[in-house]
């Protein structure tokens, strides 16, 4: 039942995304300065926001785990972090492609870019840390702490363009950057399917985690004399 709902949601999200892409390619004109590549922004920015949303979810789940000691929160935390990493990677890669075309280089040690990368590495570290702890409860506890500590970098990513002079465009959504309203609404609208996809992934990963726990418990009983 749950799987069916997830799959149908997935189909809806995919259709929505297809519609958006169609609109983007056909409905919207090229941007004046950057040309066709500008359309990357419709993925670049929503991916970043989705990624932050995932990290926030992981933070909340981690705190909840420490409060309730219920391993469900732990699975939510890993799942959200993994999906967040995927969207973080999407943001980084789309940004890099964009940078290659607009700036002519793949990467520059600009604060926004760098802090995004740090953040990505930290959460990747979270996953590495999880592998180093055998026992599930201890793993959940320690990685919850790690998740809480990691989140402290997220505001840094967010505000880095405010605090430092950067090459990265200024935020258009809340800051000094400017953007045509047609582009802007496209940005928002494209965020919806991405967020849906993230939610579906998280749900699927949580199911997997649950199965994995069940399998582990079974295997333990087999392996215990």
């Amino acid at each position: 039942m749950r799987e069916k709902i997830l799959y149908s949601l997935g189909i809806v999200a995919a259709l929505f995304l297809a519609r958006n892409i169609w609109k983007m390619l056909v409905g919207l004109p090229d941007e004046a300065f950057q040309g066709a590549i500008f359309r990357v922004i419709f993925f670049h920015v929503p991916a970043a926001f989705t990624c932050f949303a995932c990290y926030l979810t992981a933070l909340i789940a981690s705190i909840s785990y420490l409060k309730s000691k219920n391993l469900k929160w732990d699975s939510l935390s890993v799942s959200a972090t993994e999906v967040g990493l995927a969207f973080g990677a999407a943001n980084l890669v789309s940004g890099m492609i964009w940078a290659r075309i607009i700036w002519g280089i793949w990467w520059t040690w600009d604060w926004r870019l760098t802090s995004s990368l740090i953040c990505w590495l930290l959460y990747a570290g979270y996953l590495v840390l999880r592998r180093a702890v055998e026992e599930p409860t201890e793993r959940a506890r320690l990685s919850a702490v790690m998740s809480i500590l990691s989140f402290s970098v997220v505001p840094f990513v967010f505000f880095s363009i405010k605090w430092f002079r950067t090459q990265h465009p200024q935020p258009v959504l809340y800051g000094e950057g400017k953007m045509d309203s047609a582009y802007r609404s496209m940005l928002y609208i494209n965020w919806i399917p991405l967020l849906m996809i993230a939610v579906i992934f998280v749900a699927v990963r949580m199911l997997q985690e649950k199965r994995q726990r069940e399998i582990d418990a079974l295997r333990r009983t087999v392996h215990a004399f």
Partner: protein
Amino acid sequence: MRALAVEGVWKFYGDYPALRDIGFDVQPGQCVALLGRNGAGKTTLLRILAGLSRPSKGAVKVFDKDHLDRSARSAIGIIGHGIGIYDELSALENLRLFAGLYGLQSPDKAAHQWLERTGLERVKDGLVREFSRGMRQRLAVARAFLHRPQLLLLDEPFTALDDRAIALLQSLLKESLAQGSTVIMSTHQLREALELATHVVLINRGKLAHTGLRTQEMLDDPTYLYRTYGEA
């Protein structure tokens, strides 16, 4: 007042329950032998009692206070697998350190007193690193008894000790039992443990299998317990 009250304690490692609804009381002055086969959950239980680990469910009360409470902790003395003593400090420094941490009135006096009682007075300024195994074990005992704990938790204290070291430990334990302390010890060396114990708690795969007085039958044949209350 009960020295120790274990109330419906569960401990999960992941989904695997290492302790399942353990509950028993210990009155002051009792000496409890905590028995069970490999992997029964003895160490897990003792670590919870010592406040080194939190139960997943249930509560542990030490002299009617929560076991993680500061005053409960000052009433507890532990000897685990490791000796809990710093190799780079001298015997005296080690004891003074723990006396300080336990907030004793006169750390120095307590330290010297226990050095004397364990026969380490003459090497008190020697670094622990240079001590032999027997001396280290004595120091561990001194550390555990230093603050006159009312509840002693010992995890396999006789393991890998020779006859003399066992005799020393047994005599110290007897003495502090006589002074009204409570002792809980896990072990596989049934003979040594049962000689001392007044009560027995048997755990079987995380479940309480038997709790009661130590009887003569057990002394005569240590495997009696496993045969009667354990699994085939």
